[in-house]
């Protein structure tokens, strides 16, 4: 049994201090690798990272394409696109998306990007790739569970994908799936089998995420190499640790909310349902509370946005320090602010519910706690800027995307202060202002962090570089395009334009935005095409990219660059290097950089 093998290798890792024990784990053990065990059911964290990344890329293309489709409707409500009918069939009769299809597209866009791309694709990829490499471990604490984590994600993906092809269509009640709409099959066609598949897929997804997070935490806390104390870890590892803690503590609560919803759908229970009329019929359900679901959902839902953004923050910190040739500014403040964000993440969920009839007195506490998040966020922004301040900046696609991340995090974060106020939220909730806020601060920023990570660690993943020119084109169009898409939405939101509407032409007050809507949709198409350029660059570079000639292409201090260009399972051919210093000794004592493996010399200045 595979688990047996895992247990044995763990034993040898732990008790075998002699070289022989390591040689066994790193090499002899994996001699007879077949195609299946190397590429499909792989237990190598690096391969699992690639599996997460490529699955995430496929989902990202689908999710982003859905946004192009519904932006066509929003931008050009009167136009017809006959090609839509040929791909969507009766969902786009006469070349115009039907309202049902519109809601399905919006729902799936949100679900796919929040969970399948920015959670699994982002933290699944980089936690897997970087944790063992940067803490100095041969693999995860349990490679078998790690493999299961990917295959649960894959199964969740298959179920979600299959829901796109059922007759009544996928879930269409919004990515939050609020009951009673999501609980009653008669209420909307998207609440029929599509909703069940959505819930099953999400339950599998939660399992995948938990298995992954368990491994990340125990690997970071247990399997660091000699000398790698917690305060010597790169900030990437800290961010992955906090992300995993958030996931482990918040996803189970979401699962319990889903379980109750499933019982309401099929068990005849009334957890969320009370005194309802559907199609003129009175339902027997009594005594439930739809708000209960919102509490359970947002208890995950809010930490979820930090699950998305924290890994991006960690990678950006690392990439900015490497490419400015300067130590990160305020390392402990960075760790402390991530810790503060992690704690506060659990205490602010009700700011999504200010207008549900929440007691205003209670609301005041949530306003206060929400606004408190501005403090650690501001500390981080300050430290990123002071890190690159007067640095010897190398403008690579990775460092550009990192700087872009700081920009979008600031401009999206500032609108969070508006929305966090319960009084202003009465006007702004469920408008395009909210769309603009969370797309910039969470969507675009997290994507920038992800792009930065892909460009920066691509050489470690595939032993080749990605094309830099295509990277620059990708960055500039994406940065300008993202602002052009989401900035105008602030104005629409302040004018009161509600989100999730299919057609605004019946409202005279929103007619002024006709041109703006068309403009946004036009930019969306250009930005989408640019992302395909990135996808091309990614896959082309895997096979044809410029080959690495050195193990440490970015002249970085961290451990992953001490491995061979194409490391095997076990990462280091010999012994795992010992760590003597923190990860940010750049431009110190006249040296460009000092790797973590170099012992501290007696005449060195302190840091």
């Amino acid at each position: 049994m595979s688990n047996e093998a895992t247990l044995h290798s763990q034993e040898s890792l732990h008790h075998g201090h002699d070289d022989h024990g390591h040689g066994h784990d790193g090499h002899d053990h994996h001699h007879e690798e077949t195609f299946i065990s190397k590429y499909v059911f792989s237990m190598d964290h690096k391969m699992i990272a690639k599996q997460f990344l490529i699955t995430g890329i496929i989902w990202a293309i689908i999710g982003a394409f859905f946004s192009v489709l519904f932006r066509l409707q929003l931008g050009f409500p009167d136009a017809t696109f006959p090609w839509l009918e040929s791909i969507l069939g009766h969902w786009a009769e006469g070349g115009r998306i039907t309202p049902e299809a519109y809601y399905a597209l919006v729902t799936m866009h949100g679900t796919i990007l929040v969970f399948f791309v920015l959670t699994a694709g982002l933290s699944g990829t980089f936690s897997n790739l970087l944790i063992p490499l940067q803490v100095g471990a041969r693999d995860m604490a349990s490679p078998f569970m790690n493999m299961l984590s990917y295959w649960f994600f894959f199964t969740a993906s298959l179920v979600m994908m299959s829901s796109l092809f059922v007759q009544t269509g996928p879930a269409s009640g919004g990515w939050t799936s609020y009951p009673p709409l999501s609980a009653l099959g008669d209420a909307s066609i998207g609440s029929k089998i599509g909703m069940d598949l959505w819930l099953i897929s999400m339950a599998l997804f939660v399992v995948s995420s938990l298995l992954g997070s368990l491994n990340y935490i125990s690997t970071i806390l247990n399997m660091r190499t000699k000398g790698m104390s917690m305060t010597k870890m790169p900030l990437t590892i800290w961010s992955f640790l906090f992300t995993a803690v958030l996931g482990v503590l918040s996803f189970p609560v979401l699962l319990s909310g889903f379980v109750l919803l499933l019982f309401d759908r099929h068990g005849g229970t009334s957890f969320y349902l009370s005194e309802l009329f559907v199609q003129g019929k009175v339902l027997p359900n009594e005594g439930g509370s739809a708000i209960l679901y919102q509490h359970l959902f947002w208890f995950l839902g809010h930490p979820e946005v930090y699950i998305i953004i924290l890994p991006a923050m960690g990678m950006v910190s690392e990439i900015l320090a490497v490419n400015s040739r300067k130590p990160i500014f305020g390392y402990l403040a960075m760790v402390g602010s991530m810790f503060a964000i992690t704690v506060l993440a659990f205490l602010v969920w009700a700011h999504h519910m200010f207008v549900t009839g929440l007691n205003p007195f209670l609301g005041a506490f949530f306003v206060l706690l929400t606004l408190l998040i501005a403090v650690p966020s501001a500390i981080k922004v300050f430290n990123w800027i002071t890190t690159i301040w007067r640095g010897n900046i190398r403008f690579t696609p990775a460092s550009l995307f990192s700087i872009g991340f700081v920009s979008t995090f600031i401009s999206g974060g500032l609108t969070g202060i508006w929305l966090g106020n319960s009084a202003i939220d009465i006007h702004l909730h469920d408008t395009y202002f909210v769309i603009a806020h969370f797309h910039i601060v969470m969507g675009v920023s997290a994507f920038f962090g992800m792009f930065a990570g892909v460009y920066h660690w691509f050489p470690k993943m595939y032993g080749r570089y990605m094309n830099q020119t295509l990277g620059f084109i990708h960055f500039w169009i994406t940065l300008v395009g993202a602002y052009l898409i989401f900035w105008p939405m602030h104005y629409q939101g302040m004018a009161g334009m509600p989100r999730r509407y299919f057609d605004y032409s019946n409202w005279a007050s929103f007619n002024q935005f006709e041109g703006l809507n068309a403009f946004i949709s036009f930019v969306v198409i250009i930005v989408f095409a640019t992302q395909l350029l990135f996808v091309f660059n990614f896959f082309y570079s895997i096979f044809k990219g410029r080959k690495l000639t050195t193990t440490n292409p970015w002249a970085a201090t961290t451990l992953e660059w001490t491995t061979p260009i194409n490391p095997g399972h076990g990462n280091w051919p010999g012994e795992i290097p010992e760590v003597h210093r923190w990860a940010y000794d750049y431009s110190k004592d006249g040296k460009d950089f000092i790797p973590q493996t170099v012992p501290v010399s007696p005449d060195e200045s302190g840091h």
Partner: protein
Amino acid sequence: MMTMNAPKNKLHPHKYSLWIAMASITMMFIGFTSAYVVKRSQANWLAFELPAIFYVSTVLILLSSLTIYLAGRQFKARNMSAYKQLITLTALLGLGFVVCQFIGFADLKSNGLPLSSTVSASFIYVIVGAHVLHVLGGVAVLMVMFVRAFRTRIRTYSTIPIEVASTYWHFVGGLWIYLLIFFSLAR
């Protein structure tokens, strides 16, 4: 020395993962029970007596905690036949627990409180049911260990699996005690 040198006093990674998993499971039940508390404070809450058989199942799961503790001691003493008997007994007690919970469900139903009746009863079914699934997971683990104990080709002398299983088993037992006290107090 450039070797990987994990300090001996550190927890085994699998034990560590188990503790995190238990924290995670705890959060799920905190989610359930806080939903229960929120609902209870609202209108239309119907209070009723818990099925008496739940106290029988409590005794069973407490006994099984004792037997798995003894199993661990026998394993360390390499007393394999006693070990096998004790984990079998533990698994049987676990199954007995599950059966008792289902009898409890049948009691509720015959008292006019099926799953789809009042919300307070629905919560009992769902929360107790979710706990039963976690107990069954523990039973499955015990069965795997039982089969392993009979293998002659590969012999395992590591105490980690029995320690992990034992900790988990005490955990689901403790979880049930928590739920029972919770249901009794917050009726």
